[in-house]
């Protein structure tokens, strides 16, 4: 029987790590991520894993790197400023093809910003905030259940493609509690980790040279492109909600997508043909899915808790074929950082957009 518990998104992430066979966690406290740290401080050692609070996010990600190099499933979690600090090493892991899972419980940026919910990290995680033009897979969770499941999936993807996978949530998802089925997910077979370094005794060879790609840098970049193409072909994930006859399509992810779902229901009650497309992988981005929708939709409304970041990818995907509207941070119910975009506000925006006032 499934173990069903009331869990915050943060706790669900911790559970996801444990169910996903994560055996090492290195992290540094930061609101609104700290519950993940605190949860794993207690629970991970019980599950036979290593937990360490490091001196900062750079140390955390450096240790993630070192630990992952030994073939250990390793995770870190932080929030926006911490993600910035990790960029140099994330870039290194892209270079050396080291799997890792990093959770970003997004807080309000830029800068020190505020610890409340927002979606202002979109560009950083999807475009590769570090130098070198690499990519990371980005999974956006929108419920506690998904936090638990996507972390497990993230570990699988990380091992499958030997790269960093971000799990992106926000303060709202992180702190809100919902009932979660605690289940171990199986995503299929994985390639052998023949590249790990655990000392010659345990596993062959001095695999890692100072610059493994020194003599064929071009080949390295070609390989990366090939890998990214493969991921874009195979791993795009999204959810369609009440899309069949939708003429107005909402696009949203994370906590906002839940509000948008609520808005779809409210709008449908009022007879408006509204649907929701929720990208689960923010990279790879469901460009083609969106492009097809443009055949059916009269209006696209992107809703996001930021000044407009996701909307850029949506516009780019739609190539000017359908008008794209944005309900951004101004859609929150308060002007200070504690504002939330509620379903009712989205419905108002839809009505204004389609001219039903």
């Amino acid at each position, binding site marked *: 029987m499934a173990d069903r518990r009331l869990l915050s998104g943060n706790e669900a992430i911790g559970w996801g790590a444990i169910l996903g066979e994560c055996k090492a966690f290195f992290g540094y406290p930061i609101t609104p991520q700290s519950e993940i740290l605190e949860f794993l401080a207690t629970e991970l050692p019980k599950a036979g894993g290593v937990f360490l609070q490091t001196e900062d996010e750079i140390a955390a990600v450096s240790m993630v790197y070192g630990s992952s190099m030994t073939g250990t499933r390793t995770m870190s979690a932080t929030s926006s400023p911490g993600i910035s600090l990790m960029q140099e090493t994330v870039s290194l892991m892209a270079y050396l093809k080291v799997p890792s899972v990093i959770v970003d419980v997004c807080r309000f940026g830029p800068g020190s910003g505020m*610890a409340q919910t927002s979606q202002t990290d979109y560009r950083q995680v999807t475009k590769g905030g570090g130098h070198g033009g690499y990519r990371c897979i980005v999974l956006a969770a929108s419920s506690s259940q998904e936090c638990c499941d996507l972390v497990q999936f993230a570990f699988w993807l990380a091992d499958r493609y030997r790269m960093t996978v971000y799990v992106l949530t926000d303060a709202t998802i992180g702190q*809100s*509690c919902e009932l979660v089925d605690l289940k171990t997910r199986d995503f299929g077979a994985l390639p052998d980790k023949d590249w790990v370094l655990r000392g010659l005794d345990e596993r062959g060879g001095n695999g890692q040279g100072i610059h493994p790609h020194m003599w064929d840098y071009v080949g390295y970049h070609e390989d990366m492109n090939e890998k990214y193409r493969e991921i874009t072909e195979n791993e795009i994930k999204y959810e369609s909600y009440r899309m069949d006859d939708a003429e107005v399509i909402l696009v949203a992810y994370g*906590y906002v997508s839940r*509000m948008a779902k609520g*808005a779809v*229901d409210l709008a449908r009650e009022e007879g408006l043909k509204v649907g929701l497309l929720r990208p689960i992988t923010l990279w790879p981005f469901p460009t083609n899915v969106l492009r097809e929708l443009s055949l059916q939709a009269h209006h696209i409304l992107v809703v996001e808790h930021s000044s407009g970041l996701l909307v850029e990818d949506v516009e780019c995907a739609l190539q000017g074929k359908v008008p794209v509207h944005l309900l951004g941070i101004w859609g929150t119910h308060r002007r200070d950082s504690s504002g939330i975009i509620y379903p009712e506000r989205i419905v108002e925006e839809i009505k204004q957009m389609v001219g039903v006032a």
Partner: protein
Amino acid sequence: MSGLGGQGLLTMGKLLAQAGSSHYRYVTYHPNYGPSMRGGECECMVTLSNEENASIASRNPSAAILMGAAAWMLHEPQVKPGGLLLVDSSIVAERTMRDDVTVHYIPATQMALELGLAMVSNLILLSAYLEVTKALPIEAIEKALKDKYTGTKGERYLPLDLDATKLGAKFIIDS
């Protein structure tokens, strides 16, 4: 349902969600803090339902428990027509002008002080809420309280807590 303001509010919401977990298939608890990190405003929203909760929260809840002046200003107008307002009248002086909602003014903090612990005002309001809506049996809250505090430092307050849950319900029945 949603509340906003002073002490113990998030605990109350979490408790309700916890208690609701064994009675509803879908439960959502959504806290929200103001911009100043300590002593600032905070609020939370709990949804209990047997259908999947599309949304995590709503601007227009069907009931609100209000424990502060700012909370009143923000949420009094927002409660759904036909909804319910529970107000800690020891703190909030205002009276609603709306005639499309049910209102109970409960001097919860005052009552809690009389009980000996200001901190239990939240439980008084919560039990009043349950008494009005019958969303959950009061026992569910009592159980959740016991689960939470037995064996911890908070255990010594349990009797007081349990008294408070009775008091709120009693206030409604009496009024």
